[in-house]
């Protein structure tokens, strides 16, 4: 029961964030309870590791590598910028105009026949003209 009550405070005990009474209470419990004491020891090791893990020591070539990367990026970006700013609008404008011209040309091609020829094609669709309703009733 005591363990359950103390357990939620253990990490704050390790970090020294409890008030004086609570710190004493937890410390006393740890003297009696081996299991909690062992867990606190493990947790302390893990949390201390965070403070020890600082990989950035002296590195005299960091700036050289950074500069090389920036130059490489600029090299890649230069032709891309030319494409994006100049060639891309020209290319898309060309496609739009070519599309418009092709549309007009195709439109002209499809209307080269006369209006009569169109009527010839669609004559049979008008059955009333071919077979008036009166004729049908007269039979």
């Amino acid at each position, binding site marked *: 029961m005591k363990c359950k009550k103390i357990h939620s405070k253990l990490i704050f005990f390790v970090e020294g964030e409890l008030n004086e009474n609570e710190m004493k209470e937890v410390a006393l419990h740890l003297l009696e309870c081996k299991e909690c004491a062992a867990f606190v020891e493990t947790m302390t*090791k*893990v949390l201390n590791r*965070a403070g020890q893990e*600082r*990989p950035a020591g002296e590195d005299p070539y960091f700036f050289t590598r*950074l500069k090389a990367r920036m130059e490489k990026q600029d090299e890649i970006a230069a032709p891309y910028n030319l494409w994006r700013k100049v060639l891309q609008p020209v290319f898309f404008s060309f496609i739009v105009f070519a599309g418009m011209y092709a549309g007009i040309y195709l439109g002209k091609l499809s209307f080269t026949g006369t209006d009569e020829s169109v009527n010839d094609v669609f004559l049979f669709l008008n059955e009333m003209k071919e077979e008036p309703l009166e004729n049908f009733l007269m039979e």
Partner: protein
Amino acid sequence: MGEADIIAKLKEGDEKAFREFVEKYRQMVVNTCFGLLHNDEDAEDVSQEVFIEVFRSVKNFRYGSKVSTWLYRIAVNRSLNFIRNNRKHRWFSSSDEEVKLKMNILKQTASDYEGNPEFDLETRQTSVLLHEAVDSLPRNQRVAFTLSKYEDLSQKEIAEVMKLSVASVESLIHRAKKNLQKKLYIWYKKKYI
């Protein structure tokens, strides 16, 4: 050269000022990135991106916040983007690749400490355990905890970096620690009980 002078010169594109700026803040940026990424190579890669972004966007820097706060913010955002992109990549990669990736992490952790007499298996295990526990935290808790533990920032400074109130940061760190304890206890129970 003072901070304001360096920024003024950076705005003019002065390369010498940029070198000085990088040398001054390199450790801070690399450590912050490492705290979130737990990998030396990734931390260096993202740190370079941070300084490139600084060089290209320094013209927009207003003196409203400290340079360090601005840098921390860029470093945190870049690191989180890196993690997100990596996750996306991992989503599409096969399980074999995932196993290879985990093996590489373990190998890298080992090679980081090779030749160091203080390093032993237990330290390596502790590092891996710490990284797994921190990575399992929700994003804001992870950032607040990392800035507090790896960079020793005060809650006020973390609040400025994260654009939150001090009370929110306090709550985030409190919850992060509780969650970490839970994770560590699960691992501890599996191993020892």
